[in-house]
């Protein structure tokens, strides 16, 4: 029985236009913050010149790098690539299922709610409302909306699968399924938080656990938000555009399953050489190396599909963009495993090399694939010709050149800075360069990078013009096709038992189980487990050969049953995270602290910490002295041979603040002990670390006053804003609920402690002759009374506390525990 179906192409058009619009905004934000790295005036001072002095100030809070960088990353990930992904998925899923999207209402809700979320993000992030975790900055009410919209999307998608008129699922759909369920899992777990107000919350994980969950999420946001959906899009649009069959179906199968299974395990490579337990570091590095081939499987299937169509590269801009996108994907997925090697990571991590790497993915893979897809879609969605091929070609070349300048500049910057930071004087006892020296040295590359990014943005504006003109030259159409309706029994006829209780699955589960035992069992037993796992591997191969096609048939059949298939995908992606995160949650808290236990923050310090998080200081400053000799020489304290950051030093940090990039120096041990009063007695809580309170005061007012050449924004406005002391009792209650062992304090106790410590700090500033240039009339007591309440003083209190811990006992190996493989070493 046939019927005619009209596809919902209106949603595709909407998502596409939104993607282009947000893309321009996100990239513009990127170029803007790139200039901030070279010119500190771009943090707000430039407005003074532009408006002829009408707007005053060395920096404007909502224009500072720390607040705008999250806006840039969120805009390009969730707004640009997100909308692009939805456009691609809506277009291809309908055609691959021969069915209209299941519900127009859900499609509408999906589109409008997603845009509203982005608008909310664009307002809250510059306002300093953030959770302080990268790519997971949005505050909790928005998180809930994101989850709800994602569920709407998922329901709409799976419902369409259920209504499909095509018995089997095409490879693009496998990748979409993996995307939808994995992103949901990652997003929910990494956003679990305890709210303290409508706009603020603490993540439920702290310290190491938070870091592990964060990068399990962060790395796999790259995997399942920026990679798998785009691979699905590649599998649909590339063979369409090239008019050639996909290169290899079995390569699709092998690389799909290996990719979704292995990717999840690689997250800890963002925490190499840190306090992260060794077994997790090894897993992170080794799974990243194993990820290389599965990633390249996707690239091969893309590029080899073009065999026989390479001549189109000359004439068809779509093929140009898709081929370049896939090539950049191959390059980035080769570079990734390379950077995940512990020794390479020692050089590359915390430098601009990482930033360059992620942009070869974002600009090269995501951006080029998006452009290719849009140029292919526009003429079809508006039933016309592309307005200008030459303009599209121009876009291609300007974008390619832009990317190349961008990545090359950041390779130079990252490698150079990494080498300079670890360069030791010939005497072997001191480092050659100050941090600031290295920053000044790479300025030329920062400017080249901003230029490269600007070129890319220009190219994208050309795309916008081209698509706009194309749309104007045609009329919006909804494609209508004749399809043969499937009978019920032709799809989804397999029961869960038949789908899951069978030989292939049994072999995989058994082998996997023994591999896990190999990781976790004590010595000798683990080798036995490994041997069994290897034997099972061989047995599986021989069983596959002997099965006479039964295993293959099983896979073919499961592709005709979307629910069991989805369950298997979920199992594959859930294993890695569970194995890494659950033992860490059970074992590490309080036990595995390497002999150092973090001192609790005083209420004022906690307030200061929230300001640190809110201003996005973690975007440029790490709090993690890695286990590397030059790092301990640079940031460790004299006379302490083991002064890397130990696990216990950040165990109560919600969120953890280890950072991922150093545009400024590490701050892990910036603080110090409780200071002495002039009479030799101790202050109640005021601490002084490497530098005095007044140093920090002047440095926040104008970083260049203390560090000439610094590109840090001026934070004078922190001394104008008042600390939110009223919120502290609620925040401390939340911390207690999360397991931070605060003693019982009444609200009055909290206010008193804040007052005492703030008074001590403000007094020390006034006595040191502090001078607040914005309000020169404030002197002596009036200045002190002004400073006491300021956010700046709370932030100074926090900075002076960084790295405070008590020695619990001499570090000794943890007791052997099967959930902590390190304890067996």
């Amino acid at each position: 029985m046939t019927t005619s179906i009209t596809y919902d192409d209106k949603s595709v058009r909407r998502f596409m236009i939104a993607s282009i619009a947000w893309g321009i905004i996100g990239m513009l934000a990127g170029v803007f913050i790139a200039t901030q790295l070279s010119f500190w005036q771009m943090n707000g001072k430039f407005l003074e010149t532009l408006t002829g002095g009408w707007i005053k100030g060395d920096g404007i809070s909502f224009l500072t790098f720390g607040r705008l960088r999250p806006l840039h990353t969120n805009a390009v990930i969730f707004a640009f690539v997100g909308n692009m992904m939805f456009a691609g998925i809506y277009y291809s899923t309908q055609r691959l299922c021969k069915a209209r999207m299941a519900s127009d209402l859900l499609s509408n809700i999906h589109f409008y709610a997603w845009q509203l979320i982005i608008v909310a993000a664009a307002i809250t992030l510059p306002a300093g409302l953030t959770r302080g975790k990268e790519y997971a900055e949005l505050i909790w009410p928005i998180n809930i909306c994101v989850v709800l919209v994602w569920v709407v999307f998922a329901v709409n998608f799976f419902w369409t699968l259920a209504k499909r008129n095509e018995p089997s699922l095409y490879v693009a759909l496998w990748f979409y399924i993996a995307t939808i369920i994995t992103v949901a899992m990652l997003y929910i777990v990494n956003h679990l938080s305890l709210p303290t107000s409508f706009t603020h919350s603490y993540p439920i994980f702290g310290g190491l656990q938070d870091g592990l969950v964060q990068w399990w999420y962060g790395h796999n946001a790259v995997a399942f938000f920026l990679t798998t959906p785009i691979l699905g899009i590649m599998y649909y649009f590339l063979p369409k555009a090239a008019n050639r069959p996909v290169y290899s179906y079995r390569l699709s199968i092998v690389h799909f399953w290996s990719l979704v299974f292995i990717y999840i395990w690689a997250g800890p490579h963002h925490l190499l050489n840190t306090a992260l337990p060794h077994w997790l570091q090894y897993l992170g590095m080794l799974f990243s190396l194993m990820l290389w081939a599965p990633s390249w499987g996707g690239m091969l299937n893309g590029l080899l599909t073009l065999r026989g169509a390479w001549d189109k590269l000359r004439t068809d801009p779509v093929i140009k963009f898709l081929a370049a996108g896939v090539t950049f994907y191959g390059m980035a997925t080769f570079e990734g495993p390379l950077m995940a090697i512990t020794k390479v990571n020692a050089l590359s991590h915390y430098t601009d090399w990482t930033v360059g790497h992620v942009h070869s993915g974002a600009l090269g893979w995501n951006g080029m694939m998006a452009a290719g897809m849009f140029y292919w879609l526009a003429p079809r969605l508006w039933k016309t010709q592309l307005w200008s091929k030459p303009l599209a070609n121009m876009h291609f070349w300007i974008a390619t050149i832009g990317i190349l300048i961008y990545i090359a500049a950041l390779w130079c910057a990252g490698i150079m800075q990494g080498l300079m930071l670890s360069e030791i004087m010939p005497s072997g006892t001191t480092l050659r360069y100050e941090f600031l020296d290295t920053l000044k040295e790479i300025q030329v590359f920062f400017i080249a990078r901003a230029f490269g990014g600007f070129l890319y943005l220009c190219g994208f504006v050309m795309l916008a013009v081209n698509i706009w003109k194309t749309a104007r030259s045609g009329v919006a159409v909804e494609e209508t096709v004749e399809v043969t309706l499937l009978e019920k029994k032709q799809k989804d006829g397999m029961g869960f038992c038949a789908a899951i209780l069978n030989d292939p699955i049994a072999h995989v589960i058994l082998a996997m189980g023994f591999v896990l035992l190999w990781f976790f069992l004590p010595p000798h037993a683990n080798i036995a487990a490994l041997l069994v796992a290897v034997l099972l591997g061989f047995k599986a191969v021989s069983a596959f050969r002997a099965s006479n096609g039964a295993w293959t048939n099983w896979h073919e059949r499961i592709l005709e049953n979307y629910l069991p298939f989805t369950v298997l995908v979920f199992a594959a992606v859930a294993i890695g995270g569970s194995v890494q995160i659950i033992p860490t949650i059970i074992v590490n808290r309080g036990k595995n602290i390497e002999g150092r236990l973090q001192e609790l923050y005083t209420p004022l310090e906690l307030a200061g910490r929230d300001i640190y998080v809110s201003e996005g200081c973690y975007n440029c400053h790490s709090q993690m002295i890695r286990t590397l000799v030059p790092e301990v020489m640079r940031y460790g304290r004299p006379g302490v041979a083991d002064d890397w950051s130990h696990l216990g030093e950040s165990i109560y940090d919600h969120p953890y603040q280890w950072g991922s990039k150093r545009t400024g120096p590490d701050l892990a041990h910036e603080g110090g002990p409780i200071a002495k009063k002039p009479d030799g007695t101790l202050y109640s809580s005021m601490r002084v670390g490497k530098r005095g309170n007044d140093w920090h005061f002047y440095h926040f007012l104008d970083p260049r006053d203390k560090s000439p050449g610094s590109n840090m924004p001026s934070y004078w406005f922190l001394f104008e804003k008042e600390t939110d002391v009223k919120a502290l009792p609620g925040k401390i209650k939340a911390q207690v609920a999360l397991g931070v062992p605060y003693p019982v304090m009444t609200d009055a106790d909290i206010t008193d402690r804040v007052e005492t410590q703030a008074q001590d700090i403000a007094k020390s500033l006034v006595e040191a002759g502090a001078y607040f240039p914005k309000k020169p009339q404030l002197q002596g007591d009036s200045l002190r009374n002004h400073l006491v309440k300021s956010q700046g003083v709370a932030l100074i209190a926090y900075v002076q506390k960084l790295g405070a811990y008590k020695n619990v006992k001499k570090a000794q190996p943890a007791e052997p525990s099967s959930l902590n493989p390190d304890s067996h070493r």
Partner: protein
Amino acid sequence: MSQEPKRGHFAKAKGEIILREHEFDGIQEYDQKLPNWWLFTFYAAIVWFVCHWALYYQAGVMQTPQQFIVQEITKIQQAKDAEVAKLVAELTDAKFVHGWAKDPERVAAGEGTFLTICAQCHAADLSAKGPNGPLPGLPLNDHKWKFGGKPMDIFKLVMYGSPPESTGNNGAKMQAWGQTQLSPKQVAEVVSYLITKLPEDFKDIPPP
């Protein structure tokens, strides 16, 4: 697009084999065997995993980074102590004033270090005053030396920072520059530079 040749026909005409029967929205799929080199990289990475984990992690043929650092930093500290001991053995107050401080090269090097590091808190003119008010450090040009005014006292102060019992200047203490960023020689150069800037304070030290 009806005039386009059917992809399957095109593929068969070219002798490309195993074209799967089913089409998805016109997309066909070959079923080529996996490239050998690709399989090899995959298998090699898996074998690498097993070997690396078994050798480096489980058998522990290498030190942990933590053990390595303690060993290296201890070595560096010993080398540094030896460097200081050697310099201290050959330096005296008199040698500072009448030897090092008269050597223009050393004084120039000391000036460079002073301006990049020390001037942040003590000011280039040693007054510890900046354009907006006092700086975190103590003034050096007031002829008062809180921790001893002999060149060797100053050397030790820059080398090891304020003594532990010091209450600091509003809590702020001087860092142990000679233990962190500066070599003992650089510290001695800075001291020599100070001597040339403050001849008054050191005029009583007789030649050796």
